């Protein structure tokens, strides 16, 4: 090979790699690329059966898997002891104002803690179920809190987000998914 061409190879490789990393960063900001995320086994499957008791802060009692039908519902696992949950509280309140049906699952939390959390950061949830033992969390395969799922009107899980929901994802990816499964 021509020596000059050969000497250009490192530069060309760097440009290609750089372009790839740029694409990753862009898509990561849009929420369509998550190198860390383990894909949820639940996507495309029905919600595992559960029935959770109501929380004192819940507006309309607890809920079970059969309640997650009829319309697309966003399910959010949260806990008062979780700092990232405070981070996403504002975004969730925004979802509530936008009229998105949002159900919360208080994961391994104390009643008093949940109450204080909702009093301080607002209650975005139409319903709250208490998962005190964390068994429902295990069935859903959550990796931690917060974690957000979209369940379509037939009760099939369509989308998941791990960690505090950024405003861009709520307004972007989640909104698109909600429209797609409306």
């Amino acid at each position: 090979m021509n020596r000059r061409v050969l000497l250009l190879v490192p530069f060309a490789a760097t440009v290609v790699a750089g372009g790839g990393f740029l694409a990753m960063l862009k898509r990561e900001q849009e929420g369509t690329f998550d190198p860390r995320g383990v894909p949820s086994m639940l996507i495309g499957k029905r919600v595992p059966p559960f029935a959770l008791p109501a929380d004192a802060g819940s507006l309309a009692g607890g809920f079970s898997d059969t309640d997650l039908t009829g319309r697309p519902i966003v399910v959010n696992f949260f806990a008062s002891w979780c700092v990232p949950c405070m981070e996403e509280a504002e975004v969730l309140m925004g979802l509530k104002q936008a009229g998105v049906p949002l159900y919360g699952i208080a994961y391994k939390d104390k009643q008093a803690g949940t109450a204080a959390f909702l009093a301080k950061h607002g209650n975005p949830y139409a319903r709250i179920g208490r998962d005190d033992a964390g068994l429902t969390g295990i069935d859903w395969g959550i990796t931690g809190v917060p974690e957000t799922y979209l369940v379509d009107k037939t009760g099939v899980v369509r989308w998941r987000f791990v960690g505090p929901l950024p405003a861009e994802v709520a307004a972007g990816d989640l909104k698109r998914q909600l429209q797609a499964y409306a």
Partner: protein
Amino acid sequence: MIPELGHFALALAVAIGFAQGIFPLWGAWRRDARLIQAAPAIAIGQFIALGTAYACLTWSNVVDDFSVLNVAENGHSLKPLIYKISGTWGNHEGSILLWCLIISLCGAAVAVAGGNLPSSLRARVLGVLGLSSVGFQLFALIESNPFVRLWPPPMDGRDMNPLLQDPGLAIHPPILYIGYVGFAVPFAFAVAALLEGRIDAAWGRWVRPWTLAAWCFLTCGIALGSWWAYYELGWGGYWFWDPVENASLLPWLTGTALLHSAIVVEKREALKTWTVLLAIGTFSLSLSGTFLVRSGILNSVHSFANDPARGVFILALLGLVIGGSLLLFALRAPVLAASGVFAPISREGGLVLNNILLCSIAAVVMTGTTYPLFADLLLGEKLSVGGPFFNSTVLPLAVPVFAAMSVGPVLSWKRADLGSALIRLWWALLLALAVGGYAAIGMKILPALAFGAAVWLIAGAAAEVIERVRLFRVPLGDSLARLRGLPRSTFGTTLGHAGLGVTIAGIAGMSLASEAIVLVKPGAATHLAGYDWKLIELHDGAGPNYDARVATIEISRNGALVAVLAPERRQFPVQNITTTEAKIATNLVRDLYAVLGDERDGGAVLRLHVNPLAPWIWLGAGVMALGGLLSLTDRRLRVGAPLRRAGQAAAKSAAKMGAKA
């Protein structure tokens, strides 16, 4: 007031950085003697500005000034002083500032120690250092400013990640960063040489000590990180092929290759283009390693600062520095002509082999680290590349490295005879085969192979010295006289190679480790690898910013007490994080390692390990670094060679002529 002073000093550093990036390069190009001579002063000024900024941030941390956002997020009034100081660099903003400080330190060191460099080369080196660092200083000022105020200040800080509150990790980042950033100097020399269009033996001689110093620090940094993981993460593992670890291993591999190829440039004026590429590549990998981790693309247990929004800025900077220098390489490297020729079997040939193999290992590790990302991006496939891939791909490449490492140093320059070289190593080979063979009895084949390789490396390293002092062939007194006369760099090589042998032995020993997870009630005992482990009792303890649960374990062998260990489980209330504090009893030949797990049914879950030769892993790294340091003190690296003076005089007269013109 103090944070504002630091803020101002940082802004000043950016301004000086632009001056350092532009004026010396412009001056060297236009042959303006005034601008060329200004370079060292600018570089030292840069260091003073960043030193001030860094000192101000440290001060804010030490006095718990929670009105500074960075301190409020990472500090806590109860934190011990050492962690307040280390907390300065234990977070994203502070670590970027530390990075900038160290690269300016390199610039100042070149300015001060580079008095015997041709002034135009020195100006270009400093200019390139300035250009490569100013972007990151700008990043520190605009995107991740550590001096941003917070109002109203909170009562107390949010505290640093408890995992990072550890003396080993406290000193880890500065050492690792000096290693990473130190490669900026060979990089700057390489780019300066491309700009000058000239590389000679003197260039190789200037580059080597800088590379060596950076390499020593990087070796220590990696070893410290691995040691920290070993005792703090409490898994008993020491290397996880985690992206962050790989990111530090990559520049180490190419840096080791650079160290060896620079010898060929120095001695034989060959491999010039390759050495320049290695110098650029090593620093590029250092940069990527430091910053890709922080951009949020690579993530792992080790990373503690991610923000995709900052990522684009960093990626653009990386692209400018790496892409710019490689484009320059593509355009200018054809000018560099090699003059030395050599046969395939020769010292040079051995060093080329070393380079090929080390770079192949680097390529494999890089592929394994980045392939999952690209597979996800392009194919939408989720896959995880872990230990098994790296172990099975690196091993076949590492075996020839070990085999060649002992042979290379006994080969002669230009043309050598492999047969006679092997004859000189016969006893090392015999010893290695004996140990490997002995180990193969009753053991797995891989550890036996590794023990053999370790002995081969250590004995081979010794053989080189023995060969050079002609031990047993001339009277003992003559041999001693020869020993005294040997250059220190010879001992550097010996220690470097032997150190790797020690590390390999440690790794081989660790692969024979035994482990047990048992539920033990207080007063009861369990048996592991010939030791009796008795749980005496469990009690509560308290530290300055945590509550602890402590187990007391007595370890005895054949009834005789060997050690008492008190592993802890610590609960940090501020961040609601629990960490395990593993306790280790070592006698340098084996580690007894105990971790306290959860308690249930009135007993405690204990994880116990017996790790043979474990300390040798890090001991070996220490020996390697010591070899590098010894080599650094070699007279030849400090005292000018005739060639160097000639080059300097020529350059000086050229500069004078340029100034006149």
